[in-house]
């Protein structure tokens, strides 16, 4: 994430403003990256660079709630699943309150947990990594574009 932030900040990757995401988007601060990693402003820089309608959850940044899938909770297996889903209610409510259609999250634990939560609480959200979005919104130099696009 630090790397993506630096790429975009330093112009190594350019964002095409016309391609920016239009729908409401929120960002999940993973515990390991925000509270324990100190990278919450970088995430917001990226979000604002990529999305037109970025809505923060409350509370956020280093005070954000854990998604409920951390600490190895997901791979612990099915005997913990019910409790994991119930505990995720806080996160589900937080997401619903933002009204976002997409949740961006850089952590794989959160990613899986949020997809499970979306199904469990019928949130109707799409969960995405930064790296999934960047290729949709960037402005590539010509030599990196696929051949058919160059032809146009």
């Amino acid at each position, binding site marked *: 994430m630090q790397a993506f932030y630096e790429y975009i900040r330093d112009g190594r990757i350019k964002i095409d403003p016309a391609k920016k995401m239009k729908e409401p988007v929120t960002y999940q601060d993973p515990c390991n990256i925000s509270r324990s990693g100190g990278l919450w402003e970088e995430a917001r820089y990226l979000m604002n660079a990529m999305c037109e309608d970025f809505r923060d959850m409350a509370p956020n940044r280093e005070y954000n709630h854990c998604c409920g899938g951390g600490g190895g909770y997901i*791979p612990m297996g099915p005997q913990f699943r019910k409790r994991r889903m119930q505990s995720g209610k806080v*996160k589900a409510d937080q997401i619903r309150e933002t009204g976002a259609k997409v949740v961006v999250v850089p952590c794989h634990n959160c990613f899986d947990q949020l997809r499970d939560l979306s199904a469990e609480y019928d949130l109707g959200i799409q969960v995405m990594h930064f790296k999934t979005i*960047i290729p949709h919104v960037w402005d590539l130099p010509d*030599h990196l574009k696929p051949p058919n696009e160059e032809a146009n």
Partner: protein
Amino acid sequence: MAEPAVNVKLIKERLAFLKGGRFKAWLEICAHCAYCSDSCFFYLAHDKDPKYMPAYKVKQTLDKLYKKKGEVTWEELEKMADIAYGDCTACRRCSLYCPFGIDVAVMIAAVRGILCGQGLAPKGLQDAAKHHWETGNQMAITEEDFVETCKWMEEESEEEMPGLKIPIEKKGAETLYVLNAREVKFYPQDIAEAAMILYAAGEDWTFPDLGWDMTNLAMFAGNAQVMAHSAKLVYDAAKRLEVKKIITSE
């Protein structure tokens, strides 16, 4: 069925080893003031059921172990395992809420370490740790499968970005890229996306052929030996390939 015997000696050793200045001070001064309750999403999500408040979780686990000097029954240990693995994700939010700055997550991790020594870590985590120890990644993906997945993704993304390569074990590259084994197994597209971004940014990067799994489920299980091993694999890869920095996929 007879309950397995508790290895009290091992617990006592761990407890003595763990009792540094922090644990000593934390366990003594916790004022049971309950400022921490509202910080915990387990507590909030269970309609403020008091058994999920952080100080209580410590009281029922580490504090109890010290008070009983490690002489606990198997049943008590099982209860502790349910709390340490099932009622806390070690998110550390409560340590921001505590007037004394008591780091509950560190104590829960210590309890997990003790429980893991008694074979009480959840099976999923134990298996992952075993895989990491044996194969260098938590999902027991062979080097062959890893390389093949990378090749496949390289072919796919090359169609979109001419000249894109997914380098593996390239000595002297500037950057080492490591990821989560889940990406290789379930979301290979992630590899392609990362490769495209790294390529577009003009990064000189490489995967290692061993030590590409940055996850550390053994840490979550409480298995210190495998935890150190997992971290060392990535460290060794970075040294072996003489990279200047490591990018992780999170």
